């Protein structure tokens, strides 16, 4: 099944990261020595690169950098640790284990990422091993949660069509397992596994899919079940759209070549939408995923990392080339894509009864941050629920939490706990706030140029005032904010989006499709809060007065001529 043809098509010499990977002996590097170095809480750049493959990377509290330097202290280094849980599904026991870990070794909160993963912040170097071990003891892993490999596979946590979800989730897990790195380094370093020193083992044995240099960049896969597009399937390198008839899964439409990130000032970088190229049966889907990953392995740009994502590989060689290459490697052809329809990419809050008779409660989690706050003991409440819930916990792609598969008997008890701890499904929040998404940014993210998660709620307060004035409080508008253009909160798919440029300054984008089917476009560059509000006020006013029945804001701004529609990333900058 493996196809090891290595096609080297490069524009220049391999980047230094390629060199680090090559030298790492399948992700070992000097990690063990770095963990032992007692005089610093940090790791070197090289080791930090490798740490990503193990699901972690180093950050520091950027708010404290200058102060600590004066105090003759190194920056407050800490590690983000991300758990890869396909489709974001955890059992109650796993939830309790993560809750304990969060309180023991982290800043005390659990973060739900925009890719349905759990993320911990503030783990100190000497607690890394204990933390990762705890995660593995709970039958979860951090391996390949970051790094140049296939990342956490997203899967719609669909509470409605229970049987379809169960099947789709099962296939997601199998793809995830299949694409997991096979190196023993993870076990050796974190779980005190036996050291395998087998220099004779060839590349195909060590890493049959990735080889010793792994992928040129990260690779993202998302699976969704229409009419919901909560995973933003077109933002994925490989998107799979479940096709089902009468509650039975028939297969998947295959979409390739999407991605969010870009670099300011370089129009050769852009967000792109994945395009549907055909259909495969469930049994074929692993093969499709593997071959797609391997094509990117062989053709992706290994010289310049910002051009290395799969979307650029496809745009460079052309979709036709890719389909041919895929078909050649598969030895069979995809079928013609099946019809499907998306209606939205947000979450539906509150209790919903699934087709299997079990209940699902979607809770609104602001910015995906689960912690106890004064007057809102969210973390404690969820812990108490986990203690009695016989179902599961599902992380949504919009950073919310679904308490899933609840029996009617438990539902009453959980409702009591919800009341006791004052937890909320967010229905009292405006529709704008419930559809808001932001990345972590300051103070921990090293790439942030501006605030995101810490600032968005303040901005929303002010936009809500406008919305309530014009009578649009119940209007769902996707609004997204990131601290940089790398795309963690999928900003290019926000009907209104802000990407940070400098403290307090953002580029403003408008016009994405409500169901994630169209990119947005830049409207204003480098603006602060006052200008943002001055722009939005008349625009929302006009929207309230002139909108057509059922028209979404993202569609309206195009019709009204504020921005042009962007159907392909190649037009994003035009």
């Amino acid at each position: 099944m493996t196809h090891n043809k290595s096609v080297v098509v490069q524009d220049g010499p391999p980047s230094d990261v390629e060199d680090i990977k090559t030298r790492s002996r399948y992700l070992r590097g000097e990690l063990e020595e770095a963990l032992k170095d007692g005089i610093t809480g940090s790791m070197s750049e090289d080791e930090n690169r490798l740490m990503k493959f193990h699901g972690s990377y180093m950050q520091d509290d950027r708010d404290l950098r200058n102060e600590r330097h004066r105090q003759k202290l190194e920056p407050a280094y800490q590690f983000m640790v991300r758990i890869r849980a396909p489709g974001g599904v955890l059992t109650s026991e796993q939830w309790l284990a993560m809750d304990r870990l969060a309180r023991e070794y982290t800043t005390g909160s659990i973060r739900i990422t925009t890719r349905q993963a759990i993320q911990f912040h503030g783990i100190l170097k000497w607690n890394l091993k204990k933390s990762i071990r705890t995660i593995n003891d709970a039958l979860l892993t951090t391996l390949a949660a970051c790094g140049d490999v296939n990342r956490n596979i997203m899967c719609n946590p669909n509470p409605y069509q229970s049987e379809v979800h169960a099947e789709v989730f099962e296939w997601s897990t199998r793809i995830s397992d299949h694409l997991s790195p096979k190196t023993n380094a993870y076990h050796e370093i974190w779980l005190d596994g036996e050291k395998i020193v087998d220099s004779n083992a060839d590349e195909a044995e060590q890493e049959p899919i990735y080889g010793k240099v792994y992928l040129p960049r990260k690779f993202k896969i998302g699976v969704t079940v229409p009419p919901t597009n909560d995973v933003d399937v077109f933002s994925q390198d490989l998107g799979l759209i479940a096709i089902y008839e009468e509650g039975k899964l028939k297969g998947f439409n295959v979409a390739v070549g999407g991605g969010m990130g870009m670099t300011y000032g370089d129009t050769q970088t852009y967000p792109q939408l994945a395009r549907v190229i055909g259909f495969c049966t469930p049994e074929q889907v692993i093969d499709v995923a593997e071959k797609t990953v391997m094509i990117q392995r062989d053709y992706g740009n290994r010289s310049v990392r910002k051009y290395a994502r799969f979307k650029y590989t496809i745009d460079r060689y052309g979709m036709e080339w890719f389909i041919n290459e895929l078909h050649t490697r598969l030895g069979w052809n995809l079928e013609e894509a099946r019809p499907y329809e998306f209606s939205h990419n947000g979450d539906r809050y509150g209790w919903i009864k699934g087709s299997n008779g079990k209940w699902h409660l979607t809770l609104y989690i602001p910015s995906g941050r689960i912690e106890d706050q004064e007057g809102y003991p969210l973390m404690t409440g969820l812990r108490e629920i986990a203690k009695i819930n016989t179902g599961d916990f599902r992380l949504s792609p919009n950073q919310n939490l679904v308490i899933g598969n609840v029996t009617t008997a438990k539902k009453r008890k959980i409702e009591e706990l919800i009341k006791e701890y004052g937890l909320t499904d967010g229905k009292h929040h405006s529709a704008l706030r419930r559809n808001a998404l932001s990345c972590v940014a300051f103070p921990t993210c090293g790439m942030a140029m501006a605030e995101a998660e810490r600032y968005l709620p303040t901005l929303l307060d002010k936009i809500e005032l406008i919305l309530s004035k014009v009578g649009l409080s119940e209007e769902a508008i996707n609004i997204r904010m990131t601290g940089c253009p790398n795309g963690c909160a999928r900003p290019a798919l926000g009907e209104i989006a802000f990407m940070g440029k400098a403290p307090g300054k953002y580029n403003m984008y408008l016009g994405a499709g409500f169901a994630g089917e169209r990119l947005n476009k830049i409207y204003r560059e480098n603006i602060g809060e006052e200008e943002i509000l001055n722009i939005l006020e008349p625009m929302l006013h006009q929207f309230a007065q002139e909108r057509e029945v059922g028209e979404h804001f993202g569609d309206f701004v195009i019709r009204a001529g504020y921005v042009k529609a962007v159907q392909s990333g190649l037009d994003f900058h035009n």
Partner: protein
Amino acid sequence: MQFQVMNSPFSQEQVELLNRLVPTLTQTQQIWLSGYFTATQNSNTTLHTTTEVTTVISTDSPVAISREVTVLFGSQTGNSQGLAKALSIKLEQLGFQVTLSSMSDFKSNTLKKVQNLLIVASTHGEGTPPDNAIPFYEFLHSKRAPQLEDLQFSVLALGDSSYEFYCQTGKDFDKRLEELGGKRLSPRVDCDLDYDDSAAEWIENVLANLNKTLESTGVVQGTTLNGTEIVAEQSAYSRTVPFKAEVLENLNLNGRGSDRETRHLELSLEGSNFQYEPGDCVGIYPENSLALVESLIEKMGWNSEELVSVNKKGEARSLRDALLNNFEITVLTKPLLEQTAKLSSNKALEELVAPGNEVELRNYLDGRDLLDLVQDFSPWKGTVQEFVSILRKMPPRLYSIASSSKARPDEVHLTIRTVQYESHGRERYGVCSTQCAERLEPGEQLSMYIHHNPNFKLPTNSVTPIIMIGPGTGVAPFRAFLEEREESSAEGKAWLFYGDQHLLTDFLYQLDFQRWVKDGVLTRMDVAFSRDTDKKVYVQHRMLEKSRELYQWLEDGASVYICGDEKHMAHDVHNTLITILEQEGGKSTEEAVAYLNDMQQQKRYQRDVY
């Protein structure tokens, strides 16, 4: 004292004569006699000795015949050593032949030959001798100690009366020398923290008595004694005349979230002409907390503007000023309570200091200050002046210097951990550390002097490897060591063991040490952060983990330095060194101890502990 046949070498007849004579003698007459007999005996000996002495007699010097005096000091921080040196200079000026030595360098088998022995010894911690006094102390108290009938001696004891075993080492020497047959040249003097006056008095007495001895035999002529001044340094400033140093920088070295606070102070020495070396200390005269002073004045119903005399010279200051700057009000001592008992109308205080209540007294002194005392034992009688006069002078606080003057001319850096704790229902604050933490801005001044510590010095040979063990603020002098070694491009290897609670917030001078490791100035650095791990780890655990390499370093001639807490750390580290010597060197415990003693003798094992 009544002479009896049983307690003296005299016959019944002699005893009776003596008992009639002695009570009639004035003190001067007694001293004269004592000197007379000693000198007679000595001059007799002199007459029988070799021609060497005759040669000396035949020189032109007015002080032709010298008497030999041995001055031994046991010193931890250098105070005793400084006094011993000052005494020796005086003696030499008076024509004595002086052998000045640290107790550790003194060959104890020559003790029998010594006729005049002057001892200056401090007491350390809970009544223990300072490091360099231990071998001599043990020898003297052992069965091997010789009988010393020919010896006359005197002891100057340094200590701190707030400790239970005040001046204990000096007292022990004094008692033991007497037991061994020695005779007191002049009585022992016990000095508290403000030792200058009492030490000068002792020196004067000793010199006078020695002189008398010689005068009586006609050996020394025409020598007069001036007041004893401790030898001044090159600088015009000293312990008694502190320099007002400007604060250049004052910051907290502990990161946010730490439950500790450690101030990094940079002081300007410009204009002071102070010289210092790594290992030396700075003495600071701090200021008491205004709030405490005001509570005290209010409680006593005093007038804060009333003038009081603050020293023997009669210098007057307002009461508030005096309590802020001149007197110690945060520590209670036994002598202080005994004297205040006379000023209190409260019977309870009198009872507390009465014999038999030592345990209660000790318990009372612990963790209380002057405010507690005046609150607990009112009503008070007597004048403000009477009260103030019995207070101890504000003692200076010593801090190990954290910088090298080679690397930073005209600057000195200090590392001061803020002391704050609750005791008897009230928050208590370390006087100096709290002043530095809360009331000292850059631009302001601090009264300070340089306190030389000759017992904590880098090896003279810069190639000698050094092993430094200094957790917490104990790391301060090692920052000075490494700055010095970096500045002088020393080639010797250096190994530092350091620890505190949390790496993230408590790693003092982390960036400095990281740079030195990177640049090779520091060959190795092992750290123990006790609260970052499940089991508490301390520096001694890290030493044990590296026992093989550490032993190799010792065998290669490395010098070992320990700085910091004495009670636990220094003790544990010492035992760990013994374990390592046993484990890696195959030595018995006795051999290991001897190995360390030997290192101490060679000045390869030095401690600055507190």
